[in-house]
Structure formats: C-alpha cells, structure tokens
C-alpha cells in the first residue's frame, strides 16, 4: 500500500517534471527567437548558453553551485508557505547566516581546526537565520504584526546591519568598502571533484531537501504544520499546538535560509559583501515553481541555477546579451506554468477543502 502510494506520488512528480521540461524547452525556444529579433544570432546564443551552463564538468559545477543557495532559500520559503507562515524574509535570514558564518571563520576564532570551524560556522549561520526568523514570528504572535510585513521590513534591517558589521568589526584590512576579508583557504568547504565548484555544501543542501520532504510528508509534525497552514481554526480544535508549530516552522525556515548564506560564503564566494545577490527573494519564486514540495524545489532551483549561469556566460562572450534575459525567462516560465499547471499556495484541490483560505462562512449578499 505504502509502496503503491509512493509510486503514484512519483508518477505525479514525473508528470510535473515532464511538463516543466516541456515548458522550459518552449520558453527557451521563444527566448532564443526573441534574441534573434533583437539582433543576436540565435543559434550561437543557444550554443553558448548550453555550453556555459552544462558544457563541461566545470560549467555544470558552477550551475550547481549557483543553484545551491537558491535551493536552500527555496526550501525556506517552501516549508514556511506550506504551513501558512508567509515568510518573505529569506533574504534577511540569508544575510544573517552569511554574516555569522564569516564572523566565525575570520574573526571570532574559537579554534583553528577546520574540522571544527566549518561545522561551527555552518551551524552558527543556520541558528542566526533561524533566530532572525523568530523575531518576525514573535512579533506576529505577541504583538499582532503580520509576518509578511515584519519580514519585509526585517530584510532591510538585516541588510544595513550586515553593512555596518562589514564596514566595522568585520571589514577587510586595506579597503574602504563594506567587505569582509577573504576566508582562509583551509576553512573553505571541501570540493568533492577537484578543480570544479562541486563543494560539499551542494550535497548538504540536497540531503536537507530530502530530510525536509520526509519531515513534511511522513511525520506527525509535517501533517500538523500542514493543517495549521490550511486552517488554524481546525488545528486548534484538534488540539494541535498551533503557536508552537508556527514557531518551529519559522525557525526551520529561517535556519534553511541562514544555512544557505553560510554555505554560499564558505563554499562559493569565500568573502562577504552585503550585496551577494537576491537569493532570498529568488527563493520565493523557486519554492512556488517547485510547488512547495522539497523534491520539486530541487528541480526548480537547478533550473534557475542553470539559466543564471548560462546567461552570465553569454553576457561575458562577445555577444554581450544582457544576463537579465535569464530573469525574463524565469518570469515567463512561472507565468506559463501557473496557467498550465496551476501552481498555487491554495492547496485546496489536493486536500479537497474548497474553502481553505476563503472565509469560512458564505458572506451574505
């Protein structure tokens, strides 16, 4: 029985993936057509794009390394949205995680053993992200400030906090910019394929995605948090610890984003500025494209990483096609998938409760 259900689920996932691949193919064709209209040679754009994103082990590894922070911020958004916690603050949590990881690996050295420093920095980053998320949840629970609102505002607070730290105690010697010193080579995340960007952070993120899937789909905790998301009233009536679950979810969500920041600085960029890319905001799109399913998020993050890396290589080439093309393609893919497959935050159809996010009683005319 269990195996049959699992198989059905995989079939569903397979259909979704096939659909996604088809849509991506169609959109890529369209994009290349658009490039042709704008006066760029379409075939060369396509070849350069594919070559830049997956043409060699190195290209493939940089696509994966770019997808890694997206996967983690995507998981952050996905876990939270599924439980009805509208955490838009992955960007801030990502920054706080990166900040703590940099601090632990450059300044606040407790010891100098990479075996200890790396895990410490990763855990510290995850905790920092989680705590940053908890502020928003605290404000929601005890001060009635909606999470959507406080997380947006806290993103900016985190940004300026990170800048202040990077221009103050964490600033690199000999620069006026808000920038941390480079992390010593021995504290970088080890590579599992030499001379590429395949660092163990990627494996860590994948494992985390699978664990989160198990947590969501196979445990009481996952079920309860889903009920809390669909209908807090029902959850309360069923004596589920609604507040506690929301705090836990927020902590997990923020922790994922914070871990993403830590992995990004330790594994990929090796120093920090406050403008490390909009991974947090992009994570929302990744999560939604992956239909809030951790396994789906792996694919959508990979897709985003693939697009971004290819776009940057095309921009660097003699063609100089603006890399923002990648963002346009992502937007079009989401819009097309939306209408075709109905990506939705309202999971009503699957659960069979049409009024999940609607007001419970029918409003009188």
């Amino acid at each position: 029985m269990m195996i049959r259900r699992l198989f059905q689920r995989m079939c569903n996932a397979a259909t979704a993936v096939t659909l996604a691949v088809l849509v991506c193919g169609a959109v890529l064709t369209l994009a290349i057509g658009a490039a042709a209209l704008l006066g760029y040679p379409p075939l060369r754009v396509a070849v350069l794009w594919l070559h830049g994103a997956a043409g060699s082990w190195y290209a493939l590894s940089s696509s994966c390394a770019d997808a890694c922070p997206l996967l983690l911020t995507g998981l952050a958004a996905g876990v939270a949205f599924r439980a009805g916690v509208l955490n838009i603050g992955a960007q801030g949590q990502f920054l706080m995680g990166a900040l703590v990881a940099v601090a632990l690996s450059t300044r606040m050295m407790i010891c100098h053993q990479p075996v200890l420093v790396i895990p410490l920095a990763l855990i510290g980053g995850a905790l920092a992200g989680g705590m940053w998320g908890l502020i928003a949840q605290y404000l929601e629970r005890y001060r009635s400030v909606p999470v959507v609102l406080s997380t947006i505002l806290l993103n900016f607070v985190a940004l300026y906090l990170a800048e202040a730290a990077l221009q103050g105690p964490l600033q690199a010697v000999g620069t006026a910019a808000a920038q941390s010193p480079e992390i010593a080579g021995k504290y970088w995340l080890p590579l599992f394929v030499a001379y590429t960007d395949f660092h163990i952070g990627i494996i860590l993120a994948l494992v985390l995605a699978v664990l989160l899937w198990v947590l969501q789909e196979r445990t009481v905790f996952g079920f309860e948090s889903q009920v809390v998301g669909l209908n807090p009233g029902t959850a309360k009536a069923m004596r589920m610890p609604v507040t506690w679950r929301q705090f836990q979810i927020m902590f997990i969500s923020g922790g994922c984003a914070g871990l993403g920041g830590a992995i990004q600085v330790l594994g990929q960029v090796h120093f920090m500025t406050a403008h490390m890319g909009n991974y947090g905001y992009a994570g929302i799109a990744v999560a939604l494209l992956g239909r809030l399913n951790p396994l789906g998020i792996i694919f959508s993050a990979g897709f985003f990483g693939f697009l971004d890396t290819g776009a940057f290589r095309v921009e660097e080439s003699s063609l100089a096609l603006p890399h923002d093309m990648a963002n346009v393609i992502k937007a079009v893919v989401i819009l097309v998938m939306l209408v075709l497959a109905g990506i939705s935050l309202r999971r009503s159809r699957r659960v069979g409760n049409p009024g999940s996010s609607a007001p419970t009683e029918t409003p009188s005319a």
Partner: protein
Amino acid sequence: MNTSQNIITFLSRQAVTAATPMILAGVGELVGELSGVINIGIEGAMLMGCIAAYTVTGVTGHGTVGLLAAGATGMVMAVIFAAATVWGRADQIVAGTAMDLLGVGLSGMIWMMYQNWRENLGFSTALPHGSGFSPVVIPLLHEIPYLGPALFEQYMLCYLTMCLCVVAWWTLNHTRLGLIIRALGDAPEACHAAGVRVRLGRSLCLLFAGACAGAAGAYLSIMQTHAFASDMTGGEGFVVLALVIFGRWKLPGLVGGCLFFGLINSLQQTLQTARYTSQNTALHALTHVPFQFFQMLPYVAAIAALAIMSRKSPGPRYINIPWPSTKT
C-alpha cells in the same frame, strides 16, 4: 527665520518628496487590494516605469511623454498580471513574484541595450538638458511658514498625487463606484448579483494600480534623480506593500504611513550629516555610530510603530481568491 523653523521646513519638504512615489504606488495597490487582488510584483511595475520614463524622455526630450510612457508601461504590466490572476485564476502571490522577476529582468535588459544603442549612435545616455522635471514652486503659497515648502515646492507629479489622494478617498468612501470597488474584494457574490462584472471590475482596478506604479517609477527616474540604475527602486515596492497593511487598507492610514516613513528617512539623513557639524555634544557623540544604523531607522521605526499599535485588521476578505470561486 529661526533655526527650528528652518529644520522643520527642510525635514517636512524632504519627507513629502520621499513619500510621494510610495503614496502614488500605494494608492494604486490599495485600490487593487480592495478589489480583491494583491499584487506583490508592484516593484517590477515600478522598475518598468523607471526605465520607460528614462528611455522615452532620453529619446524624445520631453519629460511629459516619458511620464505618460511610464504610466502606459505600468498598465501593460497590469494587463499581464490581470490576465494571469483574474482571468487565468492563477495564484496572486505566485504571479506577483513572477511580475517582480519580469520587471527586474526586462528593465535591466532594456537598460543595457539602450546604453549600447545610444553609444553606437554617439549620443550620451544622460537625459537631454532640461528634459527631466524640476520642482514647481507655487507662488505665495510656498511662503507659508513651516509647511509651505513641503506642500508647494514639489514636483508636478506630487501635486497630482495629492489631488489623486483626495479624489481616491472621496471615491472610495462616498460614491457608488467606491462601494463597488470595496465590494469586489469583500463580497463578489453581491456584486455579481447586482449585475457588476466582477472580473472586468478587478481588471480595471489593476489597470489603475499599474498606471500608478508606472508613474511612481517615473518619479524616481526622471524627477527625483534624473538617472537610471538597475534595481533602482531598492525594495520600495515591498515597502509600499507593507505600508498598505500598515494603514489597515485605509487611504488616510496609508498616506500617514508613507509620510511617517518619509519623515523618519529624511530625519535620519539630516542626522547623519548634522552630527559632524553640530556644536551640540549630544549630537556630536553620535559620530561614533555607523551610518548604517541611521539608514536602518525608518524600518525599525515602522516595526516598532506596528508592535506598539498592535491591532490586526483582516483586510479585504477575498484577497487571493479568484472569481468565480468554483470553476464552471
């Protein structure tokens, strides 16, 4: 004129200047949300407004044409969004995220291509001299002590925004049209029963919101700065979203929130420079505080204000619920 009057005059003027684009975009977003559609992608529409205004002004040399182009571009973005959410029944949060990405991507692309194109032609990418807007001083009224400059030494679009606020407030609260707009978000069934076309109504509200967001973008690029930079809105669209909730879906609340935000922002900017020049020891002691803490102030103040006021408003009931609620 004494110093305190000077300071108040200066701060209030800065606050209104900074708040105008947020109020403008906010009024549009508010109308959209009242009709039952939340648009998270307002940042994207603003960015498209920025780039449209800048490039069109650069090419034609007329700021007004640029402003109109920005409004039109915002409406085009709204058409896409309305097609997906109102007619295609897509989830509004998801579609909004896509619109944000679309705005960021398209505006960045257009900007790079515009630069290449102008440079190949041998033109500068800067705005032609005198084509951007400068503040319009209204004679006599601007001499009113304290608040005169704040209200009467502003850009043309700011005066339009003030008029728009009054008109929108009157319409929303005292006319049949306003009742319909609010009913679209609170009781679409009732609208339907009364013969109002719900989806058409929502689409029109979104078009209005798009035009507002586009114009707000134009304000940033061809009025306030006379420049374009990719991602120049810097999250202002998200702040607007927050301020609509902050104002509890009421126009005066929204305007108050924007002005409060603008005031704290101009206050922190003034403090940043004043602490170095001031003779006052208390102010001078602030020189050791990193300037980022000043930049943080408006956001912290907004969170603090919310935490203190602490009253939740549910907002329009049918936000993010497509019409008709069952697919036929």
